[in-house]
């Protein structure tokens, strides 16, 4: 053939055929379009805000809120600032999410294992649970618990009670509150000592097994330490713990810890709904461990408990943990449904009441989204780090 093929680039203008040029031009065009759109939106927003006489900036955070909140983990009153409102809402969101994650995990693991049970009835019931609760919208479930179940509870005078200590009625669930009397520090200190001792024992036991091949039931000894030491300290200090029981005073209960119905409904719905998804994840995780692994472990002479603890669970967890984390994130985001039943979470008191009172939609919504986004991204990064750590090292 005649001569080398024509070369691209090399200082010659080759028109739009040059991919590098096209790439730069395309990106410049894209950037220009995004900037133009942002400028247009910004211009309109500023004009609209001015026309409606709405202030801008974050000055409103130090203004007085002027409304009450039915549940607050920190001191809050109507004279507190909007900044305080934000904090109260955030803490309430974190409270319901943390409790929800705890309950959903327990329930989800139970049902996921039940789904794989050799007992036909248990497996079918677990299956029915999963199929029923994950196919009904969460908001409907929240409404059901709040409006249909908790609203049907008796009035305070006819409360359902458990041993005159726990009461359940229309106004909420009342639990006794522990009162720590002087001397309780001793129990806490004993618990701390027990934790450290059990940890050291575990490390020493592992080293000993590696060196001599002889194991010790370090788990049981550690457990005995954890329960025994604080109990002994508790008795020595003269049982420094009292209970403040809720008691009927007038039309309502006073004292103790109160779980408001909004919190209960949201907690029930969130944990029952999320547990259905967690159960599926757990089931898939356990099934992902090849049968040969269990058999090989049995052939090595490991006992049933050891097979589970040393072979099956570590491998199943590798499959379970990433989707489990994303379910936790979903639960956190879904806790924002609180606003539909009036549980004072971040979206309700901040993106709801505060927004209505100040009208500063842009700032309020941006702050609310930023909170969820920060938590999500932080957990994603932690997840990626964990994933990289436990990833299969293939040789």
């Amino acid at each position, binding site marked *: 053939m005649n001569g080398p093929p024509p070369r691209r680039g090399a200082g010659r203008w080759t028109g739009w055929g040059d991919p590098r040029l096209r790439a730069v031009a*395309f990106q410049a065009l894209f950037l220009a379009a995004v900037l133009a759109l942002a400028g247009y939106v910004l211009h309109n927003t500023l004009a609209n805000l001015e026309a409606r006489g709405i202030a801008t900036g974050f000055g409103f955070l130090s203004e007085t809120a002027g409304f009450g909140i039915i549940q607050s983990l920190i001191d809050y009153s109507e004279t507190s600032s909007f900044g305080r409102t934000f904090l109260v809402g955030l803490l309430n969101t974190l409270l319901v999410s943390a409790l929800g994650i705890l309950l959903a995990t327990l329930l989800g693991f139970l049902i996921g294992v039940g789904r794989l049970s050799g007992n036909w009835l248990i497996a079918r019931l677990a299956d029915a649970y999963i199929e029923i609760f994950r196919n009904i919208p969460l908001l409907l479930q929240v409404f059901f618990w709040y*409006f249909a179940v908790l609203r049907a509870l008796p009035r305070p005078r006819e409360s359902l009670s458990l041993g005159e200590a726990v009461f359940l009625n229309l106004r909420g669930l009342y639990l006794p509150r522990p009162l720590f009397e002087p001397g309780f520090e001793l129990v806490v200190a004993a618990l701390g000592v027990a934790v450290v001792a059990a940890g050291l024992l575990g490390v020493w036991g592992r080293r000993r097994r590696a060196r001599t091949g002889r194991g010790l039931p370090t788990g049981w000894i550690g457990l005995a330490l954890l329960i025994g030491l604080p109990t002994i300290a508790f008795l020595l200090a003269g049982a420094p713990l009292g209970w403040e029981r809720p008691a009927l005073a007038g039309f309502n209960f006073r004292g103790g810890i109160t779980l408001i119905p909004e919190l209960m409904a949201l907690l029930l719905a969130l944990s029952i709904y999320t547990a259905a998804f967690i159960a599926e994840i757990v089931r898939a995780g356990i099934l992902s461990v090849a049968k040969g692994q269990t058999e090989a472990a049995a052939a090595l002479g490991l006992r049933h408990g050891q097979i589970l603890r040393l072979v099956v669970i570590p491998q199943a967890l590798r499959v379970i943990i990433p989707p489990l984390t994303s379910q936790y994130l979903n639960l956190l985001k879904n806790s924002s449904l609180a606003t539909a039943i009036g549980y004072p979470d971040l979206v309700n008191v901040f*993106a709801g009441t505060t927004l209505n009172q100040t009208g500063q939609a842009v700032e309020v919504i941006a702050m609310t989204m930023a909170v969820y986004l920060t938590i999500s991204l932080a957990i994603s990064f932690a997840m990626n780090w964990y994933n990289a750590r436990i990833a299969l090292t293939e040789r």
Partner: protein
Amino acid sequence: MSDATARAIAPPRRRSGPLRWLRRNLFSSPLDTALTLAALYGLYLTLPPLVQWAFIDADWVGTSRADCTSGGACWVFIATRLEQFLYGFYPAAEQWRVNLGFGLLVAVLAALSWRGLRRRWLAAALLLGYPVVAYLLFYGGALGLAVVPTHQWGGLMLTLVLAIVGIVLALPLGVLLALGRRSELPLIRAACITYIEVWRGVPLITVLFMASVMLPLFFPEEVTLDKLLRAMIGIVMFQAAYMAEVVRGGLQAIPKGQYEAAEALGLGYWQRMGLIVLPQALRLVIPGIVNTFIALFKDTTLVLIIGLFDLLGIVQQAFADPDWLGYSVEGYVFAGLLYWVFCFGMSRWSQRLERRLGQGR
């Protein structure tokens, strides 16, 4: 060889039969037996009263709460409100338009999945033409159809409109975002990653709040956006991010050789993606798309928080009727059952698709 080993051994006893099955599946150990008995007792406590309430003691026919006398479920409440639950406040005389609209959708989907339909232009015409026809039918304003403003839309009809529009518009956006996330152009990639991660990191409610209170601020004062339209914009933007992640899964599953072979053929970027990669990738992620649709279908209930009356919203609103106070359980059971049938049906369908696609490979 000794006599003993040569002797014929009787065949093992047959290991089947109901008793054998019971023993193995329900009573194999003491713990198993305890579990079975506990489960049976639990069922005994819950199921008979439930059946009693929902069927035996229930009232089915009537026109007012006076007809609910048996003490069980009052399905009369649902029956008298059924029209509203399905169509919202859509005028009764125009409801045929909704029926026709959804009937046509089923027909179009059936036509598209029919193997005989090989002509591309016809498929494209159906796909592009249907939204126009549906818009005219539902909203009206042309061909002698009266305009039905969107604040009269509601019930199951609104739920379906939101879910279907959401998924149909989110899919192309999601494909673009997924391609952008895997693009070699750093600026495009950064923009797509930011978009996807931001939307996926926030709850849908905040997106809906944003759509309902912030969106009007973004446009010049003379532009007024319909409430339903604003909700749709919010849902589509939100859903596109999730769709992008589903599609990305498919793109990553296509072997590198496919990309390289397409490049070797001298195809340009859009030809490579449009003719080689996307047809394979989208086929792989059909089950994922169906699952996204199920999630979206459930999430549409959130629009009631910004004041639209979807199925759940309209059921919830019916409880406030002073003539029908105290029948919320019936309402929730009805709405829950409708949602459940749709979601469960679709999830089974998606599982079947998954198996079929898996076999084809």
